[in-house]
């Protein structure tokens, strides 16, 4: 039971052969009005729900290899690797909680956001029909499930963010954010007397440690943290989620924050919470931090916790019409 499972995924050729896009699919970016995002978006969801990003797999394997062979932490990380191989091979969801669907669209001038929204929604409905997504959109008070992942007011689920940019390409990123890990996110208002956190980087550090101790294994550790320093109650949390889209192992462009990320990651991994809270050396896979501006009276630290199954992906419509997935 305790041998190291090697995370061999299917080759890109095999992934390609299972694509919902017809062979040789090309988009015409010169005619943005006619661009249909539905099929490429469906394909993006097929991939994110079943195939974990390589940097996350590498981090899990590195964590496993740092645990004592045969320990519960080691075996749990090994099971996570087994699960990654199975989900990829069968094209089934990595986790039954396929999450809330959060989408970011970056596009040049000329794309209709209203049309794009309809097409992205259609793709989410289709992915739900195909059992790639669980219907995760319920009316709050009655608990009634819409069954389609659509909220009837076309507002909040899936959550779609648009940004117009200078580039000619269209880029769509998606995150599947599970409910268990969303529940252990936290927002602190500094100064925070309860944990002795002041308005400085030391205070931020205390918030992060406190949030991870409170989360224990409940957010499916080892987690990935997005930490926004500043902003307001909304923009702070929004930023903390965006930060989780960054690849593990890539440096923070701000050298001070980069050093802080490395140090806090090491500290958190001495807490002994371990995979699923069973105890062990792998409590987090990474921490991503960004400093924002704030109102002089407010100092928020917003922390989003992503489970080990960090399902994220990006598709890019290139100017030559090809679609690439990352």
């Amino acid at each position, binding site marked *: 039971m305790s041998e190291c499972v090697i995370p061999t995924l299917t080759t890109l050729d095999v992934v390609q052969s299972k694509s919902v896009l017809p062979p040789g699919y090309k988009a015409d970016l010169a005619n943005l009005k006619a661009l249909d995002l539905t099929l490429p978006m469906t394909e993006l969801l097929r991939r994110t729900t079943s195939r974990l990003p390589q940097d996350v797999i590498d981090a899990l394997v590195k964590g496993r290899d740092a645990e004592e062979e045969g320990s519960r932490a080691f075996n749990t990380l090994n099971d996570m690797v087994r699960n990654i191989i199975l989900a990829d091979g069968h094209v089934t969801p990595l986790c*039954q*909680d396929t999450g809330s669907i959060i989408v970011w669209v970056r596009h040049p001038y000329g794309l209709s956001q209203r049309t794009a929204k309809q097409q992205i929604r259609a793709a989410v409905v289709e992915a739900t029909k195909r059992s790639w997504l*669980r219907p995760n959109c319920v009316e709050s008070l009655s*608990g009634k499930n819409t069954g389609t992942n659509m909220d009837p007011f076309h507002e909040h689920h899936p959550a779609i963010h648009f940004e117009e940019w200078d580039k000619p390409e269209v880029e769509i990123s998606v995150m599947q954010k599970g409910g268990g890990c969303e529940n252990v996110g936290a927002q602190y208002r500094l100064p925070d007397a309860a944990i002795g956190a002041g308005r400085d980087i030391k205070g931020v550090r205390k918030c992060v440690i406190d949030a991870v101790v409170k989360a*224990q294994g409940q957010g499916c550790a080892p987690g990935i943290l997005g930490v926004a320093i500043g902003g307001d109650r909304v923009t702070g949390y929004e930023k903390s989620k965006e930060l989780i889209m960054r690849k593990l192992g890539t440096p923070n462009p701000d050298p001070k924050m980069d050093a802080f990320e490395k140090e806090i990651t090491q500290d958190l991994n001495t*807490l002994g919470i371990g995979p*699923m809270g069973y*105890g062990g050396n792998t409590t987090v896979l990474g921490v991503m931090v960004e400093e924002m501006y704030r109102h002089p009276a407010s100092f928020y630290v917003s922390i989003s916790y992503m489970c080990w199954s960090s399902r994220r992906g990006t598709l890019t419509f290139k100017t030559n019409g090809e679609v690439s997935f990352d």
Partner: protein
Amino acid sequence: MIRLTTPISEDQIRQLKVGDEVLLNGRVVLSRDMGHKYMKEQKPEWLKPLLENMVIYHCGPVVKKHEDGHYSFVAAGPTTSIREEPYQAEVIETYKVRGVIGKGGMGKKTSEGLQKTGAVYLHATGGAGSLLAERCKRVVDVKMLEEFGSPEAFWIIEVEDFPLVVTMDSHGGSLHEIVLQQSQERAKALMG
């Protein structure tokens, strides 16, 4: 490794200790947030024969309905159990449940319930949806599907060699409590 098959007797359950690894076989009933609220508030009689000496699984599966009408699970890992803390002890006592499968562990109230009735908390690996769905061999029946929706319905399934770890036993032991205390101490030292 301990092999257990449902229904399970109180005597069998009392022998289990924190840290024991279990392979579970037989029938299991899925229930989570809406189901637990319903069981505590309405105590439906019809669930009694389904739950006595049986195991509840905190799980909202991804289910595939086949053309001939039968169902199968495509992803079925555990959901966070602590949300059922206000209900669990009473549900265990009312229905004489012998085991609860979930992730993340539960609190004091549930631990007391486990001791009183003779039941254990069994931890499954969170996020291992594909791996665990393979061990859910057959969907026997489903109740309250219309009312609760697919993730919240009472799915009655048969599992085979479902891999679990006892993290809370019927003698007051809890791995979660130990890890919590140790990590809190370490955090204190880190925060100076």
